[in-house]
């Protein structure tokens, strides 16, 4: 096992284990805290893929903004703070879910491992993903060949902003 593989195993374990805690913890504030570790793990995966910029964005947006927003939501909603929420911890659910998940996972593994191994030379022949790692090149990609999707994303934000205002606006009667 190379160092890279060991690092991957560690990061993946952190991501998956904290994801499980997010789902099973009855206290919603703790569940939200574990969400931070899940997002951190995903950021770690980006680092392992040489996408440092994406990793930084992941930390900034998912941990810095989204999780904090969730926390605010929980703290400001009185009934939620101390509440114990029944999550998917019932034995019956697990008994039903486990075989389904295992079968699905086995199917996925069977589907994915072989073709990626055999199609390896093919994927390599495809245009190598341009070094999105360095900020400079990323900016170049976004503003040259991918300028249209980039601008389109701003249109999504505009629609979302107008929509959010419509929904949250106070009724003035």
């Amino acid at each position, binding site marked *: 096992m190379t160092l890279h593989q060991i690092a991957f195993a560690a990061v993946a374990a952190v991501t998956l284990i904290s994801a499980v805690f997010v789902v099973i913890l009855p206290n919603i504030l703790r569940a939200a805290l574990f969400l931070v570790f899940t997002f951190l793990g995903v950021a770690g995966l980006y680092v392992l893929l040489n996408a440092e910029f994406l990793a930084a964005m992941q930390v900034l947006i998912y941990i810095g903004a989204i999780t904090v927003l969730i926390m605010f939501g929980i703290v400001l909603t009185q009934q939620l703070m101390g509440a114990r929420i029944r999550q998917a911890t019932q034995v019956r659910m697990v008994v039903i879910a486990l075989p389904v998940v295992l079968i699905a996972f086995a199917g996925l593994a069977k589907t994915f491992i072989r073709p990626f191994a055999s199609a390896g030379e093919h994927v390599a022949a495809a*245009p190598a993903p341009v070094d999105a790692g360095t900020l400079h090149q990323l900016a170049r990609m976004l503003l040259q060949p991918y300028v249209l999707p980039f601008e389109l994303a701003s249109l*999504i934000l505009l629609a979302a902003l*107008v929509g959010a205002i*419509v*929904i949250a606006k106070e009724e003035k009667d």
Partner: protein
Amino acid sequence: MRIPVDPSDWLILIPEFILLGTAIAILMIDAFAKAASDRSSPWISLAGTAGAIVAAVFLWGNPLSGFGGMIVNDDFGVLVSTAILTGTALAVLISVDYVRREELPAGEYYALILLSTIGMLLMVSSANLIMIFLSLEVLSIALYVLTGFARMRPRSQEAGMKYFLLGSFSAAILVYGVALIYGATGTVDLQSIADELISPGVLGNPVLLAGAGLVLVGLGFKVAAVPFQMWTPDVYEGAPSTVAAFMSIGSKAAAFAALVRVLIFAMGGLRPEWLAAVWVIAALTMTVGNLVAIAQDNIKRMLAYSSIAHAGYILVAVAAANRLGLQSIPFYLIAYAFMNLGAWAVVTAVTRKGEEAVGLSDYSGLFWSHPVLAGSMGLFMFALAGIPPTAGFTAKIYVFMAAVAADMIGLLIIAIVTTIISAYFYLRVTVIMFMERPAEPPVVTVPTPLAVAIAVAAAGTIWLFLFPGVTQSFTDTVARLL
């Protein structure tokens, strides 16, 4: 992929830019002159939509592609865009008095309608999986908000929330499919995917098949195909009638265009693999849509199931994937824009404040108080059922011909049988309006813009029956793409 963006590439997007400028103008007027905006925004939107139609027609006939092949402007795209813009124009017309009556914020309403239309148009001309996803998001986010636009009505809120949750989930499935297709082919460009599929190593790759399947699920949700249709009746029932009218044609047309581009243009070489899936989905969609529609007493829910059923017929043309099929899809969508918007316009007229009077019984004896309104509704019901002399008949005949040409006799039989079944619930509305004669027939007011919309829709429904060749000569050029 290092393709420089040529400044002239932006010319392809003129219709979208006209709509965007209009939307921003409406928002600005709304911010600075609220009273003026309430009166003027529908007319500004209508002018913008008309401008976009003119621009789209000017783009007709000279196939262009830009942004390194991300956006194509071919005749197929222009035809579907015409269907979408027709739907938008009619939806704006029927909204004029509705928005006032329901006291909805006018500026934001029309701006969101236009933003959603931009997403639809971009989705039609996308030739790149990333663009398809992003334009899907633009059109969906605006629609989620529009669905829950009547904030004071819990039904509308519930519908908006439901649509948002299920829609986000289906978008995630679509992205997963895009990622798998990229993993198998190394590209998100539809033309390059088509080129990759020539090599046998890629063709049998299960990752590619899984990706294609997930994309089919994601887009199937948007066109309301069974078994991804669960949201449709609740959303159509809860959403403001005008919004339901708008999305029943717009998001369906856009998603079908994307489906055609992905399945036929990019993955035509994979047809033996995806045919079985599309076959089953089409058969289920026609059957479930038409059978469940029979049991509906609420006209909005009935039209929702009718819209599911029509998605099934268009899916037959997609499954055929031949010349006739490609010709019939734009024709079907344009015909559907007229007849379905017309039916929704009548529903909007009969509905009273707060989305009351949506039961079939509210149409009882409508003919005796409003003969013209009831006559138009009868025409639209005939058209949706596929009875001549209406565009619905011609559209269905084209689809059936495509199925025959593709040797899909089983699917053809299901399509014909379900069409006959569907006549029952469409004609029932007509019977209720004409044959029943209650002591007090319903009295409704039909404002002028709404009347114009109904007249245009009725004229279009008959016109496309009399002169199907108008679009036929257009669609001939589409078929040459194959």
